Every structure is written in C-alpha cells, then in structure tokens.
C-alpha cells in the first residue's frame, strides 16, 4: 500500500489525458497517449506490493535445503505490466509511423489542418 505510487499514477493519467485533449501538435498527442500508458503501468505494478516482501524468485539455497521461500511480492501484476509495456511500445510505434506519413501527405502536423474528413 504505497500511497505515493497511487497518487503519482493518477497524476500521470490525468496529465496524459490533458495532453491528448488540448495539445494541437500530433506528436504531442502521441506523447500524451504514452504518458497515460505509463501511469496505468505504474498503477498495476504498485498493486502487487506486499509489505516487507522481496523479489518473486526462488533462492537456490532455499530450494536445495527444502526451506519454504521468503515472503515475496505478487508476481502476477509484474507479468501484466510487462504485457502492457509491450502494448504501449507498439501503440507508440504505430502512431508515430502514421504521423510521419500524415506529414508527407498533408505537409503539416497540426490537428487543425488534418481534418479533411468532417461533418
């Protein structure tokens, strides 16, 4: 229960949504999407924390001696976060490649100019 992490992740999500909603440069919009993803990843990792726990791997000495493993943090959110980081990287890559092609075609990356489909 780390309060600072939760507050920080909410702040990141809100800042990311603010960037997507108000900035006109398309690259800043993509950056905002990335910040939302990072905020959500921070939230997921912080949810798995157990007070006083160590990393979720088995020590060789414990296994050889048949001792029960140490108290460790939850490993499932770490796997979820890894998946989410991969997804975030792919979203950023795809969005930036679209922005490059939009610049080639429209000669501008201002959101007010990229609006040939409306109504």
């Amino acid at each position: 229960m780390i309060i600072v992490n939760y507050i920080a992740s909410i702040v990141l999500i809100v800042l990311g949504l603010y960037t997507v909603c108000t900035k006109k440069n398309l690259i800043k919009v993509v950056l905002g999407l990335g910040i939302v993803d990072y905020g959500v990843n921070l939230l997921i990792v912080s949810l798995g924390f157990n007070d006083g726990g160590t990393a979720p791997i088995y020590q060789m000495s414990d296994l050889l001696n048949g001792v029960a493993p140490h108290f460790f943090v939850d490993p499932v959110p770490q796997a979820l976060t890894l998946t989410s980081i991969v997804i975030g990287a792919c979203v950023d890559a795809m969005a930036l490649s679209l922005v490059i092609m939009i610049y080639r075609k429209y000669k501008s990356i201002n959101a007010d100019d990229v609006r040939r489909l409306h109504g």
Partner: protein
Amino acid sequence: MIQHFPVLAVMLLFLGAFCVEIFGSKNEGIRNTITMLAATIALVLIYALIKPVMIDGEIISYWMGNWAPVSGYAIGIGYEIDALSLFFALLVVTTFWLSGVYSLSYMANDHHLGHYYTLYLMLSGSVLGLVMTGDVFNMFVMVEIMTFASVALTAFRNENEGTLEAGFKYLVIGSMGSSFTLTGIALIYGQCHTLNMAQISAQLSCGGLTPTTVMALALIVAGFGVKSYIVPFHTPAADAYMVAPTSISMIFSGMVNKAGVYGMIRVLYIIFRVMDQSNVQMLIVLFGAVTMFIGVTMALTQHEFKRLLAFHSISQIGYVITAIGLGSALGLTSGLFHAMNHTLFKGLLFLTAGAVLYATGTTNLDKLGGLSKRMPKTTICFLIGAFSISGLPPFNGFVSKWLVYQATYTKAVESGNFVYAIVTVVALVVSVMTLASFIKVTQAVFFGQLPAELKKTKEVPAAMLVPMYIMSALCVLCGIFYPIVNKYLLYPATNAALNVTNYIDKMMGDGYAAGLGVSNIEVAPAAFSFWNPIVWLILFVVIFIAAFIVITGSKSSRGQLLQPGVKYDPKYATFFSGEEELFSQVGGSDLFWGFKTDWKGYYRVLEGLHSGIVTDYAVFTVIATAIITLCMFIFMR
C-alpha cells in the same frame, strides 16, 4: 476432443497469419490457399460446437496447460464457452469467412496483399479469442490485437484521400478506450486478486460493491463503449468505415462492434451482475437512445455512400444497447437478435457498396445514378438489405425491431417509468428516418438516370456476388423462420447470460457458487406476439401481382426522357427554368432538403461537433467517461 476446438480455431487463425507472412508475399496462390484454409477450418470447428453447447446445453471449460484451480483459487488462463459466447462466435466466424471470400476478388488489384491477409487473419483470430475467453486480462490482450489490426487495415490504402487521418483518429480514441479498460482491470485485480471471470463474479457477490469495484465497472463499461461506438465515442467509426477497404468495413460493422457489445454484456450481466438495479438500466438505455437518434440524423445529410452506412451502423448499435440495458429476458433476447440481424443486413449493405465502388470507382452519391439497369443482381441484394434495416415485414429487421419496441414498452408498463415509453417512441421515429434515408440512397444510386460516364459499368464477378447472395438468403430466412432461431440460438444465449451459477460452477468446481450465495434466475422463453411474417409475405406477393397486372394492362402514357438536341414545346419551360437540361435527376443530397432546412440549427450544432479534429474527439471521450463514472457513483447502491 471437442473441448480443444475453440482454442484450435483461434490458434490456427494466428498460425495462418504467420504462415501468410512467411510464404505468401510473393506467391498469390499460396497466400489465398492458406487464408481460405485457415478461415474454413475455423468455421467448421466453431459450427461443430453448436450441437454440444446450444442444443445439449453443456458449457465447455478449458484450462490452458491443464492448470486447474488449486484449493478454490484459479491460477491458469481459462477458456469458457457457454451459449452466449457461442452465439457471438458463430456471428464472428460467418462474417469473416464471407469477407474472405469477397476479398479474393475485391482486393485483387491492390498492392501489399500479403500484409492485408496477415492483418485480416489476426483481426479474425483476435475477435474469436475475445468472445471465447474466460480470463479478463486475456480479453484485454485480444482487444488490443483487434485495435492494432483494425488501425492497420483502416490505413491500408494510404494513397487515397483521408485514410491516414482516419487511421490516426481511430488509434488515438481506441487506445484511450483500451487504457480505461486496463485501469479497470487493474482495480478489479487489486480488489479480488484473481483474473478469472467466474471467480471474480463469485467474489463480488459475497463482498458487495466497494468504491473500487464501482470505479472499475465504470471504466470497463467506458472502455467497451469505445469499442462498440456508442454516441460520444462514435467519432472514429464514421471515418474508419468510410476509408477502409469494403471487405474490412463489413468486418468492422459486423464483428468489431459486436465484440464491444459482447464485452458489455459479459461485464454487466455476468461479472458484476448490476443489471437488476434500475439506475444502471436507465443509464444504459439513455445512452442507447441518444446513439440511435444522433446516428440516424447525421446519416440523413451525408453525401458519401459508405459514411452514410457507417452512421446507420452506429444507430442500429444504439438499438442493441437500448435493448440490452433493459435488464429483462425479453430485452436481452431482442438485443441479441438485433445484433445478429445487424451483422447480416449491414454486412450485405457494405458488400453492395463495395460492389458499386469496384464497378464504378466512386461512392459519391451526387455522381452515381441509375445503376439498376447495369447491375441488377447488386440492386436486388441492396433492396433486401435496405428493407431489412428499415424493418419491413417479411425480413429479419422487422422481427427484431418489433421485439425491441415490445421490450421497451413492456418495461415502461411494468416499472411505470414514462422514460421508457419515450424511448419506444424514439425507436419508432428512428426506424422511420432509417427508411427515409434508404429511400434517398436507393434513388440516388440505383434508380434515376445513368450519368454518361457510368454507361460502361459491368456487374461484379462471381466471388463478390456469392457472399451477397448468402447474406440475402440468411436475411430472408431468419425473418421467416424466427421460432427456430429463437429456440436454438437466442433462448440458450439469454439463459446463459442471466444464469451465472452454471458458468461459475463449470469453471471452479461444483458448489462454488452456492457456497458464495449466488442463486439462479428462472428464465421463460420469450413470447412473440406480433403479426406473422408469412402472412405479410403472402400479402406482398398478392399486391405485387395485382399492381403488375394493372400497370402493364392499362396503356397509360408515361413521360418521355429529354433527348439532347431536340427542340421541345416551350410551354414546359417553366418546369426546367427555361433551360434544357441534359437529364434531370433528383440527386442524393436533394431528396430531404425540406427536412434539413427545418432542422438547420440542430444540424449546425451537430456538424460543428463532428469537426474532424482529433483532440475534440478525445474531449468527448473523456467527458463521457466522466459522466458514466459520476452516474455510477451517485446512483449505485
């Protein structure tokens, strides 16, 4: 052996996608073979599941890696296929198979077809995996694969006008929706410490709804709302359906929409089980009603064929969401039936639009006209689709729309809340406006006079006609033989959505649900009380024969078309403003001019909101999510 079929279907589609990537970029024959082989095997495997799941009523539960639950805790990824999942899986599999057959000749002139078929197979596999999984994070991963493949396919023909910006808008809004879903899933995990849907459902019933889970519910509903394009989230849909290749537009409106609807049903009815609270019902029904109305009024002013069909798609999904939000067995039945019918008739309409685009090279309603003389088979298929979507009697749209009206009206009578009566009236008005809009499209594209540059259009090849015929036949058959559809498809699906006990018990072991206090609801099969469509079919045939005899029997004189170069009697000059027009055609955008002028203020506001700027669309998304969250917190018990 039969329990392996669902996972085999999904994984063979993905394997097919990778094999097309390896082998198929140079050789066209191998590419088409691998694609159709993968699609056909998936079709056969899913259709083989009808007998055990729908007819015999068993639920297939499958743990990946044989990781069965240990001491009451689910540790593996589970796939659970009950009747609701199989209902949507059947729709998904039929749609993408027909789209594959269609795209064999529709996409034949494009470049980079290896990438197209890879993305098409990944899209199909991900939607199929989404509807069949029993693990909430696996569902999120499938939603992400679906979003990526959809964005890539939207921006596929990037030399055309506007494709790249439509793809970018789709990516921004879709990615925001996915982030909301992921936050909701993270909050659920923090509360329940498990990712299995059955176990979450059981734990939430004994713990009750804490503020964490209410926030999670609001965020997941908003996330799936973005995927199913209800109204403030509908903005990328109009652009994306317009610019995507038509075989993919058909998949978007037939499969990807339904994945969002399926997600909402799963979350609301099975995981959280909040649909017995009247405030949640009112929220979802109001969203659905607004979607219906805004979708159809925007559609009346469009000048482009596929964009008009996209707005109609949004409006019909509004019907489905309204019906699902009612919370009663009749509502759920009508919603599911309308979802199935929407896949069929909207897919048919998009396929005819693709045929028109392939034959003439344009979908602008002002430039087309009179195509029924050159493309008669496409015209008949289009008319069947147009009659179905407007809700005319012998077709399937009539049955499902009548059930929606009946469901909302019954709810208004039972609960005494007149808002549901207003929703019924809105649904009826929207149905009339849909019919008006399709009269406009039919006149603009298929009837009227043939412009000079379109005189050489030919009928489309057979590989494009066969899916259209199959879908038209299904439209007519589902309308006439609705009791069979109800008994074998809808009643098991509704039963599965309302009775959670079987779902939980099959995954976690018998007695788990009873131990946590979840009980069963008895569902009676929905009663149909409306006019028999067979009677209407006979009536139409009789009237048609009578009209035919009257028209061809009497030698009434018809008006003459104007011929170029011939001097006419000047007494007719008042009708042509004194000029000789080469042909007089009522253009597509001129037909409801009076209606559009009357509602000028409304349209100015609405078209100003659809400004095309991606940040505006993001603001709508955030505001709608905030509204959903606030309503859930204030009104939830």
